[in-house]
Each structure stands twice: as structure tokens, then as C-alpha cells.
């Protein structure tokens, strides 16, 4: 399931590798999905004429027509309710909720309809919906624009949840999600939209397989940092700094937050025997608790210390001026690593 990205970035770059931002990678993925699947439709607030507030749907209406890429009223319950009807009629909706915090008005449609229609209809009404949600914080935006809803969605039976950490992952995970027969909540780390990186268009994984499960982004021997979304790049920075102190950190990008790739988690932590999970969401009942439990269950005998969590705080997401105090920063993650390193049994 997990394959190292290291080998794809070093030697023999295939001709299909190109440098682009996550915006461009997602835009290209949507463009290709619309071209390849006549049943795919893209819609949301400002998704049509404007091309989305983050430019993710830029140019798609002009290319694929206003019947397949269109603006909706400012009503998330309507956007997701429309998705239910379209899916029942055989379409493959790819709706956008403009910001994480705007998903709340559509919780009824997501939880009570989309997540369980397939189950309720005994498999006769699948919901192949990919809900794009610009997520997490980091852009100095107002209230409701910086929230992390992964635990909320992951808790709902019937939903799958995924978050890309870089342009390559964004391109392939979105294309893959859009072909799934189940509803997928696609959480885009909005603070990473503009950073450019190499995307291997032709190949998902080093072994050519589908982008399922977790992925080791950096190999290490002493401790595993588990993260997703925007926290992956921060953990990669932390790993470089830890190396200066002689600590060899592995970074595991969880990618799929439902279902979680427990096998990849266990394999990594069995090797390193120490783990810290990092997320932007508040601590209590965050997904870090689930990750910590899976590690404990699978690696109890080999763990050298309890799994640490470095997370946001149990407060409403703060205004932009306080964002840097809330989101786990490099020093807080290093402190978490230090707590694990110096743990003594008994």
C-alpha cells in the first residue's frame, strides 16, 4: 500500500513529470475527469463563471459548458441536496463547498442522505459523489474559513475521507476519488494551493498502483511523524531539523483518513518504535486519537513510549492574527518528539 515517494523524485525522471501548483494540479484533474466521464458535473458557489475563489475550476465552464460546470445559490444544503438527486439519476457530481466551515449547513444532506443512500437502497442507489472542501487553516481568513472537519466526516459510516499533501497527491487522489462508487470527502489543504512541486502525471505510485492507503514521504529509523494535508510539509521540515540533532524521523502521509491504512501505520511504527501524530484540528476526539489507538493496538509490545499528539487547541478556530499560535508549529512538534524520546518506563 505505502510506497516511498523518494524514488520518484531522484533518478530517471519520466517525461510525464511537470512542475505545477496544487491549484493547477486540481484544475487539470477536474478537466480530465470532465473529459473522460460524460456523467461528471462540477458545481458550487462561484465555481462556474469566476472559476472558484481559489481558481480550482478556472476555465472549466468555458471548456465543458455551463450545463456541466455551473454556479449554485449560496446554500450548501442545496448544493449537497442537488448532488443526491443527480447521483440518483446516474450522474457523478463533484460539488464544492467553498470553505470547510460552510459544510455545517449541509450536514443533514451529507450524513442523512449521501452517506447512507447506498446502504438504505440495498446497493441500488450508489452515491458516487466527490465533495471538494477547501480545508484547514493558514491563510489569515475570517471565521469558518480555517476548520478541520476530518474527524466529523470520518465518524460517519458510508463516507470516505481523503486529503492530499502536495500537487502530485492532489492530482492523482482527485482523479481516483472521482472514479469511486462511494461518496468521498476530498479535503484540500488551502494553505498549500500555491506551492509548486513536481507532478508525475502518468504514474500514481512508484509501483504504478492506485493511490490508496498511506505513503511514506521520508524514511527514518527513530520515530514516525503521522500527518495529513498541510501538516505533511511541516513535518518534513521538522524531520530535516531533527536530523541536525541526530534523530532520524520518518514522515507518514496518511492520505486516506477513512479508511485509515492501519497496516502502513503499524509497519512504520514497528520499525521506529516511537510515534507522534500531528493535526490542525482540536485535540479532543480528533483523528489523532484514532491513529494513536491503531498504533497502540498493533504495536503495543514494541512501542518505547505512548503515542504523542501535537494538535490545535480545544477552542473555536481563532482569527487570522492568532493562527500561528493555534496551528502546530515546528517547535511544538519538536517538543512532542522530545517528550517521546525522553519517556522512561515505570
Amino acid at each position, binding site marked *: 500500500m505505502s510506497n516511498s515517494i523518494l524514488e520518484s523524485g531522484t533518478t530517471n525522471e519520466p517525461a510525464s513529470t511537470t512542475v505545477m*501548483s496544487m*491549484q493547477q494540479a486540481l484544475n487539470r484533474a477536474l478537466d480530465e475527469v470532465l473529459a473522460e466521464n460524460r456523467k461528471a458535473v462540477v458545481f458550487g458557489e*462561484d465555481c462556474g463563471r*469566476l472559476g*472558484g*475563489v*481559489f*481558481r480550482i475550476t*478556472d476555465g472549466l465552464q468555458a471548456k465543458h459548458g455551463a450545463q456541466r460546470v455551473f454556479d449554485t445559490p449560496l446554500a450548501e444544503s442545496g448544493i449537497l441536496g442537488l448532488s443526491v438527486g443527480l447521483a440518483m439519476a446516474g450522474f457523478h457530481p463533484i460539488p464544492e463547498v467553498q*470553505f470547510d466551515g460552510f459544510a455545517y449547513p449541509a450536514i443533514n444532506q451529507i450524513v442523512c442522505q449521501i452517506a447512507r443512500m447506498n446502504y438504505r437502497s440495498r446497493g441500488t442507489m450508489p452515491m458516487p459523489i466527490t465533495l471538494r472542501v477547501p480545508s484547514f487553516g*493558514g*491563510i*489569515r*481568513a*475570517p471565521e469558518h*474559513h480555517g476548520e478541520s472537519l476530518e474527524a466529523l466526516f470520518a465518524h460517519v459510516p458510508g463516507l470516505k475521507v481523503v486529503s492530499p499533501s502536495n500537487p502530485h497527491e492532489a492530482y492523482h487522489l482527485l482523479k481516483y476519488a472521482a472514479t469511486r462508487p462511494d461518496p468521498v470527502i476530498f479535503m484540500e489543504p*488551502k*494553505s498549500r494551493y*500555491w*506551492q509548486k512541486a513536481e507532478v508525475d502525471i502518468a504514474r500514481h505510485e512508484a509501483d504504478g498502483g492506485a493511490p490508496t492507503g498511506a505513503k511514506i514521504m521520508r524514511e527514518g529509523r*527513530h520515530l514516525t511523524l503521522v500527518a495529513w494535508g498541510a501538516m505533511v510539509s511541516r513535518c518534513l*521540515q*521538522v524531520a*530535516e*531539523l*531533527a536530523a541536525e*540533532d*541526530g*534523530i532520524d524521523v520518518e514522515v507518514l502521509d496518511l492520505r486516506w483518513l477513512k479508511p485509515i491504512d492501519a497496516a502502513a501505520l503499524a509497519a512504520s511504527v514497528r520499525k521506529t518504535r516511537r510515534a507522534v501524530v500531528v493535526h490542525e484540528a482540536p485535540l479532543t476526539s480528533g483523528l489523532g486519537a484514532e491513529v494513536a489507538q491503531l498504533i497502540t493496538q498493533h504495536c503495543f509490545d514494541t512501542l518505547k513510549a505512548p503515542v504523542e499528539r501535537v494538535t490545535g487547541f480545544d477552542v473555536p478556530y481563532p482569527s*487570522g492574527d492568532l493562527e500561528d499560535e493555534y496551528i502546530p508549529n*515546528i*517547535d511544538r512538534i*519538536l*517538543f512532542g*518528539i*522530545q517528550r517521546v*524520546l*525522553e519517556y522512561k518506563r515505570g
Partner: protein
Amino acid sequence: MAEISFPLPDLGEGLIEATVLEWLVSPGEQVERNQPLVEVETTKSAVELPSPQAGKVVRIHGGPGDKINVGEPLIVFEVPDNTAGIVGTVPTEEAPKRRVRLSAVLDED
């Protein structure tokens, strides 16, 4: 580059227009978010309008003494295509900074 138009907002409760007193920026100028753009007078008061965003000023509407209706264009900005219309600020990439150093004796048992 993309153009973003900013219409005159309702500056009170139910005001329908405002009169331009003085423009504080001119076309071609690069402005920052919250920088004062223009002084206008309504039936209630004279106020300075802060810029809703950063960008280069392309056009301004109305000279001193001109009335502008709420909802009509006041100023047009030019912004890079990939930031047109975004809510918030594009984060800058900074070199990682640290204050914490790790210390550990790693027993490899």
C-alpha cells in the same frame, strides 16, 4: 492578470448612495489591504473606506462631488490570476525556524 471590481457598500443602515469627497489612491498605484482608498460623504457622516484587498488600482469611479449608488462600481483592482477572488492571504514560504533542540540517548535495544 485578472480584474476585480469593488462596488460601493452600504455604509450605514439602508443608505442608498454616497458622494466622493477625495480619492486617496490613483490608477496604477499598488495598494495594501486596509489602506484608505477614498473619503466619501453619506447623509450620516464622512468616512474613509479601507481597501478590501491588496492589488494594483486599475480604475476609480467618480470624482470629487460625484454621487455613487450603493452596489455600483467604486474601484477596480488588478490581481494575479491565481489569487483573484480569494478570501484570505496567500501564505509566504519561509525558511523553517526553530528554537527547540532535541536531546536523546537512543538505546537501540
